[in-house]
């Protein structure tokens, strides 16, 4: 299988789905003529033309709302937020309309929209540009929230998201766009939403994680194996809602210890939810308290060397994993 970047994987998924279904359109700020702020949509305007690849003004509430409206008619819009951080500008449309319309209409109206774009910190752009909104989004029944960690997952999950009949929020991590990995060229390679992936098998500790933290966790796990003979299992959730808690529980039954790693502030986060569900369904399996590594609880700091410390990193995962195993 060819090795491509995460950025290319997203682009290939878009191109293949645009080709497959003429109801698919890509819309957003600078996606067409400028090839996307992060160059995800490079070449798509040339290939699919301005009817399918649409530049919008800087009007998040307006264009996201337009996409939601179009999706009610059966169009399958993929909306790019230049940064997921700007979801707040379109918040009313996303939550009051996209998340609710199917329910409020008693199932009469579907909303097959995908909203996607880069999220998370790590690029030193400060508090307004470093949001991790997956917990806020996932708090709303009616929506799906997907966070791929590898190029292959990015492609397979995005294709599924575009074919899904519900609103799917697809959070790419800015720091991952350059990551390379093997990706199948099968045009129908779909990874179903809501299936977690055991990225590394192990027996001593379960790390439950998603997004860029998967990479930190895998690296820490390799180090722990080498230096401490500790065998860590890494479960990548891949989607936050639907949430594959069964795969997590199966792993907990094997290792009896849990570390949650998330690039989220800790209060009311995805990890908070996970910790509760694990104790609810597998309390008897636990040999030690669940612990977690999160973003340090504050708005994103700009200062580049300090932002590195604010986010989960390999060292922090390593130390916490040791603590989890030794407690």
């Amino acid at each position, binding site marked *: 299988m060819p090795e491509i970047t995460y950025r290319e994987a997203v682009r290939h998924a878009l191109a293949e789905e645009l080709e497959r279904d003429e109801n698919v359109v890509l819309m957003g*700020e*600078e996606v067409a*003529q*400028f090839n996307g*702020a992060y160059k995800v949509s490079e070449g798509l305007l040339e290939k699919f033309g301005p009817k399918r690849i649409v*530049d919008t*003004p*800087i*009007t*998040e*509430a*307006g264009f996201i709302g337009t996409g939601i409206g179009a999706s009610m008619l059966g169009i399958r819009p993929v909306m790019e937020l230049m940064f997921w*951080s*700007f979801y*707040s*500008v379109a918040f009313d449309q996303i939550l009051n309309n996209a998340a609710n319309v199917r329910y409020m209409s008693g199932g009469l109206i579907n909303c097959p929209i995908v909203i996607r774009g880069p999220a998370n910190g790590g*690029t*030193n*752009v*400060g*508090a*307004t*540009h470093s949001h991790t909104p997956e917990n806020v989004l996932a708090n709303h029944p009616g929506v799906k929230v997907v966070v791929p960690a590898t190029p292959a997952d990015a492609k397979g999950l995005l294709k599924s998201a575009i074919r899904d009949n519900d609103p799917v929020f697809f959070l790419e991590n800015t720091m991952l766009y350059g990551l390379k990995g093997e990706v199948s060229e099968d045009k129908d390679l779909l990874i179903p939403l809501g299936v977690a992936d055991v990225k590394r098998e192990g027996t001593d500790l379960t790390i439950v994680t998603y997004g860029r933290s998967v990479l930190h966790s895998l690296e820490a796990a390799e180090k722990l194996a080498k230096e401490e003979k500790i065998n860590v299992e890494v479960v990548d959730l891949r989607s936050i809602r639907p949430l594959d808690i069964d795969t997590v529980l199966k792993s907990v039954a094997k290792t009896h210890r849990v570390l949650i790693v998330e690039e989220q502030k*800790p*209060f009311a986060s995805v990890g908070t939810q996970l910790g509760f569900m694990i104790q609810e369904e597998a309390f008897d399996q636990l040999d030690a308290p669940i612990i977690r590594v999160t973003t*340090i*609880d*504050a*708005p994103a*700091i*700009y*200062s*580049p*060397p*300090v*932002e590195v*410390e*604010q986010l989960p990193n390999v060292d922090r995962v390593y130390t916490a994993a040791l603590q989890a195993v030794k407690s």
Partner: protein
Amino acid sequence: MVSKETPTTTITDAAKAAINAQLSADEKIELYRKMVRIRRFEERSLRAYQSKKIGGFLHLYIGQEAVAVGACSLMGEHDHVITAYRDHGHAIAVGMETGPLMAELYGKVTGCSKGKGGSMHYFAPDKNYWGGHGIVGGQIPLGTGLAYGVKYQGKKGSAMAFMGDGAVNQGAVHEAMNLAGLWDLPCVFVIENNRYSMGTSQIRSSAGPGLAERAAGYGIHWAKCLGHDVYEVRACLNDCLELARNESKPSVVEIDTYRYRGHSVADPDKTYRTRDEIDEYRKNKDPIAVFQRELSDEGVLNEDLIKEIDTAAREEAEKAATFAEESPFPTPADIQRDVYWETDHPEQRTSKGRLFFS
């Protein structure tokens, strides 16, 4: 198709407008010096960025200096300013010192925001400067709020809220304009039309005949002027500020200007405009060159003084960079400072519940 390029009103004899006629030679030199200082500061910051001393984004204001300098030179005790992420020019124009500004770009604890905000988030409330803001258009309702505060406190003042041509399309901008019109708030909405939002020309982003014209829908006074001539900026904005201060009326001003650099340093302009277009502006409408000519004709500037101002500005920028280089970074413990007033002032803490923090 109706052309979306509207003719721009030119104020004839802006230099002779009362607000400019009363300027002393020293004051004129100070206006000129500020523009040069902004430019040299930004050129120095660009070099620091290229040598990877600065992270994140760096949006340069080069080409637009006459707007911030002209506007901020009109500020009195109760006049306030707020702007977007392209905020270095306004910060220097309101009188912030370049050392802490450069240190902020370097992410140092001596930065004006202690290394927490970066390039897009300069603030100096002691200079009535309410910041650089990263969400396009998000600062405009805040500007309306500043004007509300001025009026509420019974002060004879105003708030100038700056935005780019792209920002004008945001819903929040129009909600803010409506409120300002509805409540007669002393707000001056300043559109710095540099013709592009990132890679999108104004013609591709905005419906209707023009940007300032939209104010008519809210019954708000509007005006347009050219932005490369600091006299003209001052003459035009002064009328609006007087309207705000004396009659508590808002206005919308669209200023025709241009940025030489890409949208940000990380995002150079290769595709959406021509070299010729940039060179054309630089040659004929560079705000510093234009003012230099004007002041030389008036006999206020001469070769020696021009050189002296430029050398001083370069030295100042270099000193700012040295200050930034030599300053320490924040520590990880600083991450959780400045989040809550209460945690920074534990002795005066009033909350009973836990903040679940630290």
